[in-house]
């Protein structure tokens, strides 16, 4: 099951809550109702159901259902779970995922600033210290480089730390450890030491947080060999990605977004993970492929509503895996629509969009009818003033214009 956004008709109540919440005057995203979830048999959904499937061959076999993407008719009968699931907010989903993994494996521990007694600055680790103790949920001093390195050393000697950056931007101080040790040591040690860490934290442009607290580190980290990067955007994939990242033997950087923590969704009760390397089909379509991730997914879906009213049929994919890219999902989509628009919150220069543009051009150039368009945030330190901040990131109106331009 996945929180898949429906075609506009069925989701009118959904989109109204979206547009209300993205009113720039509101400070907190608070949908008036939970997103209704339809179980779809798209390949992304099938992947994420129930059991972890780590067998790549088995995985290829399941690829055959990829063409089921367009079907809308699947109702509750197609759902693989009869349980109704439970509703929660995104930060609670992250916490649930973390807590379940800590129960499952005693080697999983958390380290970061204010993760213990304070419960985490965004409450992702709330209650965990009481339950698991001060050593398993470790409140560190303000020394990002060193406690990240400490997490890496602990991972090399058998533990599975989840390292929290209170804000992703703070991890710039830990760049030395993340690049040199986290990414490289498995290789330079000739495979002798694994580093199964998860480095996570909130990033992205918030509500007038100022330039330094509004950074998008995915562009800085993407070149580091040996790490994987994923970005969550819904409570469903937040919990799934958190669990998958913890279980992975590779170091994974999980990007959360400051404005998405209060998203509400109904998620399954049973254990599930979201595959770290896969993208998520949000809305199938025919005319144009829109690739996005994290918060921009919601701007895209809002623009999609307008576009559908104007007669366009955009296909929206949440790429989720920022490194490596899921070229299969993306490629299939390009082959179908022949037009690509990338919408991201990353900076224009050297961002995820830039890499993605290069990857698509390299692999699927023959299938493109028009040059790839990439909408990114401007190369500007995010201003404090709300009006200025609003124009540094991509807004739905720009997305609509871009699609119209692309589809001429």
């Amino acid at each position, binding site marked *: 099951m996945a929180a898949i956004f429906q075609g506009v008709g069925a989701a009118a109540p959904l989109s109204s809550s979206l547009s209300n919440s993205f009113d720039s005057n509101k400070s907190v995203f608070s949908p008036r109702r939970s997103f209704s979830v339809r179980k779809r048999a798209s390949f992304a959904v099938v992947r994420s159901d129930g059991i972890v499937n*780590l067998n*790549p*061959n088995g*995985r*290829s076999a399941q690829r055959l259902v*990829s063409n089921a993407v367009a079907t809308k008719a699947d109702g509750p009968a197609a759902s693989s779970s009869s349980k109704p699931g439970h509703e929660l907010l995104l930060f609670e989903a992250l916490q649930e995922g973390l807590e379940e993994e800590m129960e499952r494996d*005693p*080697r999983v*521990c958390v380290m970061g600033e204010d993760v213990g007694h304070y419960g985490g600055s965004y409450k992702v680790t709330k209650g965990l210290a009481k339950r698991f*103790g001060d*050593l*398993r949920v470790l409140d*560190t*001093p303000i*020394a990002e*480089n*060193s*406690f*990240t*390195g*400490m997490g*890496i*050393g*602990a*991972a*090399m*000697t*058998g*533990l599975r730390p989840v390292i929290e950056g209170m804000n992703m931007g703070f991890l710039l101080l830990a760049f*030395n*450890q993340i690049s*040199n*040790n986290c990414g490289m*040591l*498995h*290789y*330079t*040690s*000739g*495979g*002798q*030491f694994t580093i*199964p860490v998860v480095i996570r934290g909130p990033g992205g442009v918030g509500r007038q947080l100022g330039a330094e607290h509004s950074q998008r580190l995915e562009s800085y980290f993407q070149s580091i060999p*040996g790490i*994987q990067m994923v970005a969550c955007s819904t409570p469903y994939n937040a919990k799934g990605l958190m669990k998958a990242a913890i279980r*992975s*033997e*590779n170091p994974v950087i999980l990007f959360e977004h400051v404005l998405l923590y209060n998203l509400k969704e109904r998620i399954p009760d049973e254990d599930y993970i979201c595959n*770290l*390397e*896969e993208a998520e089909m949000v809305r199938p379509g025919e005319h144009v492929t829109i690739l996005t991730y994290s918060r921009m997914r919601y701007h895209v879906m809002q623009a999609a509503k307008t576009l559908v009213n104007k007669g366009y049929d955009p296909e929206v994919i949440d790429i989720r*895996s920022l490194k*490596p*890219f*899921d*070229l*299969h*999902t993306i*490629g299939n989509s390009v082959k179908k629509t022949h037009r690509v628009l990338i919408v991201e919150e990353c900076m224009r220069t050297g961002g995820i969009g830039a890499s993605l543009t290069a990857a698509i051009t390299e692999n*699927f150039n023959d299938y493109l009818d028009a040059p790839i368009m990439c909408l990114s945030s401007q190369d500007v330190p995010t201003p404090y003033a709300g009006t200025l901040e609003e124009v540094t990131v991509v807004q739905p109106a720009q997305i609509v214009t871009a699609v119209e331009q692309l589809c001429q």
Partner: protein
Amino acid sequence: MATAFSVPKFAAQPFNPISPTSQQKPLIFPTAASPFLGSTRKLLHLSSSSQLNLRRRSSGSVFAVSDIVKEKKSTSIPSLLITKEEGLELYEDMVLGRAFEDMCAQMYYRGKMFGFVHLYNGQEAISTGFIKLLKQQDSVVSTYRDHVHALSKGVPARAVMSELFGKTTGCCRGQGGSMHMFSSEHNLIGGFAFIGEGIPVATGAAFSSKYRREVLKEADCDHVTLAFFGDGTCNNGQFFECLNMAALWKLPIVFVVENNLWAIGMSHLRATSDPQIYKKGPAFGMPGVHVDGMDVLKVREVAKEAIARARRGEGPTLVECETYRFRGHSLADPDELRDPTEKAHYAARDPITALKKYLIENNLSGEAELKAIDKKIDELLEDAVEFADESPLPPRSQLLENVFADPKGFGIGPDGRYRCEDPKFTEGTAHV
């Protein structure tokens, strides 16, 4: 005997690390009354021997340990610090370290190894003095000057030499090189090229040990971690951050400073506001100890207590070992800045010569036996070089193998299969 390695220049008084040169006329390099050569600051004179109680658990104590050793020697029946077996083990380890590094230099100039190679000549007492006290499960974290730490920890000379030659039989399959010696079997957790980078990793290894004991309830887990680094690193933020965390959580770690007075061409005195590094321990709540790092027996005595402290769960210790590197910073360093007098002074305190003298004077061994050990080491090294020479270079297929522990991390290719399933992946020709 144990302590009085009297250096010709200072023969007038027995060697006292607290104030060796105070009454002498100034030497060529700038010193005043100095606790160790090269420093311009006076050390607090701790004259009362009762204050220098190594076993007192106050975290504020700062002292130079060799006084205790001297004291022990004079008050009790003359007892030796080591047994014959221990003595020979120490001697062999130091000779192995020295001979290995000399062989490295030879091989480098013959074009068998490349890049940055940092040799440990002169500092063997520290590696041997500390690491020979460890168990296999204890961890060692080093810097780029790590060949001898690897050897002392038990990594075979063959594996280290092959690694230096870049062969696939090296301890890191040829992928690490001189500055990245790792061994999971011997718990050698690097080998780091940037200074200070390994200290947090060492702190993490110590954290693991504490976690195992307290959370995973492995009651007998008392693994200790040793972090080796130099004087230059002691001005780096990671050093201070880790001193804080280790003391805060009482981690089982010993921070060993190999103060050889020089960071490439930067003298410790020119880089550090307060050159007495051991004093920085008590500022964070752990004992700071200064020891003569050219004397393996003194180092061993300090190491015993520091390691035992960590094992007992009492927390970290900062040990500053005064030492010297006989060669340049690396094989590329012309080593023009250091004063020949300074070099001569330390050359006269060669730890291997000193131990040899101790063993012979105390009838623990004889010339013949020690020469036999020298010969054994020479043969070992010949064998190591031969092994490395004959080992194969890494094939192309090795290129992508260890980038990820789980190779699914390379992602899904356009054809829908995981990239790692592509046969070009195992051949090493796939572009990732």
